[in-house]
């Protein structure tokens, strides 16, 4: 049967679906995308058994057919074709013959497809109890905290972002890898019934972050151990991480020894330079805070040393030296989109809390590196 479809839309949709396909999947069918073609729509489905993507695009044909095909190969050839309409001819043994209507190109490309038979059933989006979000809003809720989540899969609850409604009319997202934690609370103009909160796997979070646009709306719902997102023509269906998210409120300092105000960009640039003189995985730098300044130091045997001084505004005449992972500091500072930040200090062995100056609902908390007592003075 013959399918007419725009090359650009098809390429875009295949790329969306294929992005979650793992080349290492043992199940051969899952290294493919499923194509469900009806008269005026093509639906492309993919899954790695933890997350599934279903995306739709317009196409024209006079019948219906389903087939599976390798998304990477399909997308590779489409990428190299001119942007003219495509004619796909799929025969009964699922051979996909791809022809460009371009007059510039004479070519023949036939991709071996597979029977869709073994492709697993993907749950449909359930609209029950769904919440409507502004895409830009959700994107911020995700992108502001995802850096702090653990990339280790050993402790699954850390390998995801936790969403919860702490008080009616608000939503909070939290990410932590147990060495740092990022937390963002925003108000919403509706009830978000998230129960005791849900943990969305980091892989799904990355997918969402890629798909969400600054404008437009999206819908979200969840049942049992699955959650659903509907973003424009794409649906994401994901497993919810099973398990209890740690009691994050308990590690948020309630009061500080003292606080300092720092110019965000200056601080960030300074940390970046000093960090060059550290080594992975600790990336240890020392922040010596006193007399309305921070002296940043790095000293690594057999590598070298660096020292920089920047002016700050302190609310008390205190001094302290804190060891900290420079990469963690950079990750946090990069997400602070205010000109100035405040740094709440609670001690040499207790967390450093960073917030935009005017926004205490966005917190980035970093545990220090225990340093030698010689720095104690």
């Amino acid at each position, binding site marked *: 049967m013959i399918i007419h479809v725009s090359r650009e839309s098809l390429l875009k949709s295949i790329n969306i679906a294929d992005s979650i396909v793992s080349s290492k999947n043992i199940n051969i069918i899952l290294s493919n995308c499923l194509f469900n073609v009806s008269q005026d729509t093509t639906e492309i489905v993919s899954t790695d058994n933890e997350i599934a993507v279903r995306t739709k695009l317009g196409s024209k044909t006079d019948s219906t057919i389903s087939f599976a095909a390798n998304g990477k190969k399909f997308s590779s050839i489409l990428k190299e074709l001119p942007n003219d309409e495509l004619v796909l001819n799929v025969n009964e043994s699922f051979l996909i013959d791809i022809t460009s209507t371009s007059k510039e190109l004479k070519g023949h490309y036939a991709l071996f497809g597979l029977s869709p038979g073994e492709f697993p059933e993907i749950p449909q989006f359930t609209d029950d109890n769904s919440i409507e979000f502004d895409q830009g809003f959700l994107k911020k809720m995700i992108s502001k905290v995802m850096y702090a989540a653990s990339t*280790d*899969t*050993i*402790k699954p609850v850390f390998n995801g972002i936790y969403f919860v409604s702490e008080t009616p009319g608000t939503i909070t997202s939290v990410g*932590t890898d*147990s*060495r740092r*934690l990022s937390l963002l609370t925003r108000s919403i103009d509706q009830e978000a019934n998230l129960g005791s909160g849900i943990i969305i796997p980091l892989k799904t979070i990355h997918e969402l972050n890629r798909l969400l646009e600054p404008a437009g709306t999206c819908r979200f719902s969840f049942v049992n151990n699955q959650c659903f997102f509907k973003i424009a023509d794409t649906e994401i269906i994901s497993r919810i991480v099973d398990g209890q998210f*740690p*009691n*994050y409120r*308990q*590690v948020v300092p309630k009061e500080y020894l003292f606080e300092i105000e720092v110019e965000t960009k200056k601080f960030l640039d300074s940390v970046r330079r000093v960090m060059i003189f550290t080594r*992975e*995985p*600790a990336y*240890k730098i020392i922040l010596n805070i006193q007399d309305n300044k921070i002296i940043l130091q790095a000293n690594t045997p057999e590598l070298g040393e660096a020292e920089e001084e920047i002016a700050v505004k302190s609310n008390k005449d205190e001094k302290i030296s804190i*060891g900290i*992972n420079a990469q963690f500091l950079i990750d946090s500072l990069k997400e602070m989109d205010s000109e100035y930040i405040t740094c709440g200090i609670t001690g040499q*062995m207790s*967390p450093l809390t960073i917030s935009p100056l005017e926004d205490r609902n966005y917190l980035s908390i970093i*545990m*220090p*590196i*225990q*340093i*030698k007592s010689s720095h104690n003075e």
Partner: protein
Amino acid sequence: MNYRKIIHVDMDAFYASVEQRNNPQLHGKPVIVGGNPKSRGVVASCSYEARRYGIHSAMASSTAYRLCPHAVFVNGNFDEYIKVSRQIRDIFYEYTDLVEPLSLDEAYLDVTENKVTCASATMIAREAKQRIFERTRLTASAGVSFNKFLAKVASDFRKPNGITVVTPELADRFIDGLAIGKFYGIGKVTEKRMQDLGIKTGADLKKISREDLTRLFGKAGGYYYDIAHGLDDRPVEPYYLRKSIGKETTLEHDTDDRTLMTAVLKSLSGKVSESLDKHRTKGKTVTLKVKYADFTSVTRSITISDSVSDPNSILMHAENLLGKTEAGIKKVRLLGISVSNLDIEEPEFEEQQLVFSFIG
């Protein structure tokens, strides 16, 4: 039945990969670590690029040169390999203390119980591989199974940078399909003999009774029978459990001079201490060995509550032990000191990343 969870980690073309990592000019080139091609040396390790020419480790360097004249031959920097090996071993200790290093580039891990409370050995293997890569930029292959033999064969199954899991359910099928030469312990000669007997795969091996295998291959036959049936109960033996660290020296002349003996003990204590430090361990038992001029020998040992590794403590104990021998009354020919009952020294992280203490 409760199965053990064993991981065998094998670095991919370890020495050659370290050389390529440290010298970007060697990237993508056939690199051979080992003897000079003009010498009678052999290939210790070679990069995957070199393997494409049919070069493999233990091959004569001259043969390797003939197969690939443009290969880069390097002498090898073992200090560097030891350094990287230690980095990798430290990663293993993040998961378990039951680590049995087989060489600088491979080790068994028993993660049945582990420090990260993770039930999945596969997850740990994947994670450890990732950490190795993050910290050393080197890749490893891992085999995960319920015994050492299968874990080791599995790690070789998808090289480089692979991971192969052989679950108890899969073991039979996995063994059946295994070429006989792949069985650990079956070398070239035995392989040939098996081939001649029509034993080409694990499935063939399985058909033969224990009696027949023992008749054909002696004691090893029993071992072949067991592994063909997925039976291998050898424990993962951490270095510190099975080793004592010791040094001994034969004196230039037999002597009854206690001052001279003390000097010898002092030197031995220094060497033992150095070796303990190198293995990052201490021990609770100090043993002195004395061989008299008449070739009879005695050992005296003391076990103390706090592990020692510093030369002065070892010397002090050794001297006390020497007093409990007939040294000086009888002439002494050889002196030796060893420290056993070793423990893994907790790496002293005076600088440690702190973590949140989430409770509840």
